[in-house]
């Protein structure tokens, strides 16, 4: 073949030839024509889609069963992660500079105000959808065994969502956020046992300089340390913790009978005890 080929003549491959080539095949591992099998393969052979079942119960796509609230909440988390990372390119978590950066983002950075508003609105929306999701789970009784474990994961996710919102609130370093965090962390003084003004706190030797509020703020007042801590919890630690919890949450949904599905039948001797057995 190579002998018959004219020298130095490079021809661009046609689309049809590309689809036969090694590169195409290394990316798309199976045929793409619409058959039930290929559609399943598309899900099974993709790392992102495979978190999702290839086939689902038809009830799982009925909006009046789920309201799609968990999915919307997850979508908002993705929006927040992307817009949040973008904001981080312009934001310095230090006193004085933080507020200037927000002003800069709003008034000068191209699409800065848009990005900031997206982050802010998505943050508000995520709080609302998380609660609505929880409400839906309650209404459909989906907190009952075997899903009670996932209900608890969900409670933690709600907590961390609220903490994301709380820590993000301080970041603009404006009057609103500053006093909100002052008030919020002053409540922590009243923590039982660990707070300097809570039950048993003073008796155990807790003061404003060694109690739980001190650890949150990195000091006795809302100042530079508190801003930096809020930033790190907000942009690094809590997103990671929440992501891990979401992985567990989604995995557990499938193991517990999938969305709107009946609880899986377990083999009696696999169950850990009489309680689980009854369920």
């Amino acid at each position, binding site marked *: 073949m190579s002998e018959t080929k004219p020298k130095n003549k490079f021809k661009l491959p046609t689309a049809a030839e590309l689809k036969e080539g090694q590169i195409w095949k290394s990316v798309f591992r199976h045929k793409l024509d619409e058959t039930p099998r290929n559609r399943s393969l598309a899900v099974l052979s993709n790392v992102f889609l495979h978190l999702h*079942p290839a086939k689902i119960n038809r009830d799982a796509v009925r909006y009046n069963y789920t309201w799609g609230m968990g999915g919307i909440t997850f979508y908002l988390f993705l929006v927040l992660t992307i817009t949040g990372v973008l904001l981080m390119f312009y934001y310095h978590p230090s006193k004085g500079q933080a507020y200037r950066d927000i002003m800069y983002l709003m008034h000068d950075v191209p699409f800065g105000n848009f990005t900031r508003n997206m982050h802010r609105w998505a943050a508000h929306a995520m709080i609302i959808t998380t609660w609505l999701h929880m409400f839906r789970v309650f209404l459909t009784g989906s907190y009952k065994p075997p899903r009670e474990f996932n209900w608890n994961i969900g409670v933690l996710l709600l907590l961390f969502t609220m903490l994301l919102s709380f820590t993000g609130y301080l970041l603009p370093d404006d009057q609103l956020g500053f*006093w909100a965090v*002052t*008030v919020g962390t*002053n*409540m922590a003084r009243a923590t039982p046992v660990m707070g300097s003004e809570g039950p048993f706190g003073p008796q155990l030797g807790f003061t404003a300089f*060694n109690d739980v509020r*001190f*650890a949150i703020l*990195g*000091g*006795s*007042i809302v*100042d*530079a*340390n508190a801003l930096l801590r809020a930033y790190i919890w907000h942009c690094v630690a809590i997103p990671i913790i929440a992501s891990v919890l979401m992985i567990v949450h989604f995995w557990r949904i*499938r193991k517990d009978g*999938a969305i709107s599905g009946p609880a*899986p*039948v*377990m*083999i*009696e*001797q*696999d*169950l*850990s*005890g*009489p309680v689980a*057995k009854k369920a």
Partner: protein
Amino acid sequence: MADDKNPDPNRPAMPKPPMPAMPAPPAAGGMPKPPTPVAPGMPKPPTPAMPAPPAAGLPKPPAPAVPSAAVPVAPKPAAPAAAQKAPAAAAAIPANPVNPAALRPQPPKSGVSAEPAKADEKGLLLRRRDFVWHGVAGMLTLGAVAFGRFFFPRSLFEPRTSFTIGYASDYGFGVDTKFQSTQRIWVCRNSQGLFVILAVCTHLGCTPDWLATEGLFKCPCHGSVYDTEGKNFAGPAPMPMRRCDVRLDATGRIVVDTLTLYEVGRFNEGGPTGGAYIAV
């Protein structure tokens, strides 16, 4: 039996349910916990702990269903030598929850007695697996303690809590706000003397505003209102604002200590030398 139940519908239907990778109780001796007690030696359907059981569901104890090097070769269960060997051998099993006593061949009908378990306790830290896990747990505990301590800084870069505010003669009757933004205090003077109010709302800690024309402190956060001496009379504040300790130093300047505070009821613990107020 239990196996007759329909397995998880997500899984392919199989006559015998596939077992998880964890070592399930071997057919012999290893008793599943309460739900379905099985007498040792009773014929059981295969509950292979691993994909390829040597022979499905051997009813006879001496050949446990776990195809692993962990099985002691010598079938002399009662001999002390075997009791010594068994734990070491068990350490080779890749997962932990099975009582090694259950893996040891036992005379049929003996059941699982407490005795072999006791023998294992003796060598708890000698077993390699336990040693490693105790080490890991120890490191994690140390790490957790250090992690916790890490959040409590030793040095702080905060405004001083003890400072001078000049001479008493610098202040007239009424409320002076000149230290509000730097020290978070108001210097006040009335017929009794000079006192310093800590500018912290007793509700949840915002700084109230001094409204000179109205002669009131109002908190912007939730609306608490205080009179000229910091006594609350409206809003959620539960008590009057606290006062800082004030003293005269050797040169006659007033030293304020924002960490020594007087709550309502102790406001008259002062006098010429200082305290909740200085009589000047």
